[in-house]
């Protein structure tokens, strides 16, 4: 059997491009707008979300046979909230400056529909290993979009990447100007819109 036909492969790679949670299912847009002005915050946010998604999927899948059906959403949210608070505490301890810039948006991962969505539709009905892969795959799918948008916004909005100047001063001297629109929320909307367009066009074939 070819590796691209295995279930694990599909579970992991499908959400990265084909059924990407952001550009395919248009979920998690709020945080994608808020934290992508700079690449650095986008990367940290991506890591935090991937961590939460992977472990919430894994833990919920491990407990799936014991979770009473009538309180399953509460159980899922408890697990997710615990992981998010943990991620937030770690960021505050080791990446204080970035955690300040991310402000409420790390805490808001709890309400990110990608995570509860994956827990409900996937982790509750599938074994732990595939759930973990699904979590990481979806996390990377989200990260991929966030980082792309972050690159576009920081490059065009500030002429920098990771805080380093990449557009040479000579360009500015010659009359080049940073695009103010990219720093504002509409810039992220436009960037995400373009990515969705690109994705829909490519994957149709």
């Amino acid at each position, binding site marked *: 059997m070819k590796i691209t036909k295995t279930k694990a492969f599909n579970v992991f790679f499908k959400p990265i491009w084909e059924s990407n949670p952001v550009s395919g299912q248009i979920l998690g847009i709020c945080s994608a707008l*808020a934290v992508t002005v700079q690449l650095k915050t986008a990367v940290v946010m991506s890591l935090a979300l991937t961590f939460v998604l992977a472990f919430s999927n894994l833990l919920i899948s491990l407990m799936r046979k*014991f*979770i*009473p059906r*009538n*309180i399953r959403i*509460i*159980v899922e949210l*408890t*697990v997710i*909230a*615990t992981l998010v*608070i*943990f991620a937030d*505490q*770690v960021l*505050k*301890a*080791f990446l*204080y*400056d970035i955690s*300040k810039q991310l*402000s*409420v948006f790390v805490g808001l991962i709890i309400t990110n529909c990608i995570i509860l969505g994956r827990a409900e539709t996937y982790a509750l009905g599938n074994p732990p290993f595939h759930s973990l892969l699904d979590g990481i795959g979806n996390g990377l799918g989200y990260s991929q979009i966030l980082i792309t948008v972050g690159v576009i916004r920081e490059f065009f909005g500030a002429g920098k990447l990771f*805080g380093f100047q990449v557009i040479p001063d000579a360009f500015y001297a010659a009359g080049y100007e940073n695009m103010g629109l990219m720093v504002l*929320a509409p810039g992220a909307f436009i960037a995400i819109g373009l990515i969705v367009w690109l994705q829909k066009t490519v994957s149709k074939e």
Partner: protein
Amino acid sequence: MSNYIKSILFAAVLSMVCGSLLTLASTGLKEYQLKNIELDKHKNILKSVGLMDGEDSVSKERVEQLYSENIRQVWISVDGKSVPEQRKGQNDLPAYLFSQQGKVQAYIIPVHSRGLWGKISGYLAIKNDGATISGFTVYSHQETPGLGGEIEKKWFQKNFEDKKILDDQGTFVSIAIAKGSVKGRIPESRQKNFVDGISGASMTGKFLSAGLKQTLTEYEPFSERFRKNEIK
């Protein structure tokens, strides 16, 4: 076992496990977090007197070095005299002095103000003439990101530089945040006592203005002594 009891038991056990894990994480990481907060405060003090420009590229060691070389904490009694740490009373106020070449260049006062959603904490630095603001920074707040949250941004804080807390006659009037831009709204003679407000965040501005006024009034005896040139 009935379903209800099973659900309640499951929920109870899960909450216990999650709760204890979080307590563990929070106590374990507390030390690092407090260190970060302390460092961040020092950074903000340095920013308020212009020793740092707010970029994060400065290393921890450099911040601590700059801080210990230039900044010194003092306590101020109600009548504006400085008090040694050992003898400080309950009503004495903390302040920081920025000295260079053996002369006090500016004094920094901690500001704790009410905001729209929670407390706003920051530092206000005033030059040694006791009237001109050298800088203002915010290190903690709970205002709405993008609206009131802009108080932590450089563009807003930059407006405070070189504004005055005295009017033309030399009477204390404090510094206030205007509703919208200062130009056109505030009479010419008072423009130096106002900074541009944030659109969509007039409440934050109102509370912060009140907080700044209250703090500055408390420190007025100390500022007075700077104006009379009693502190060198």
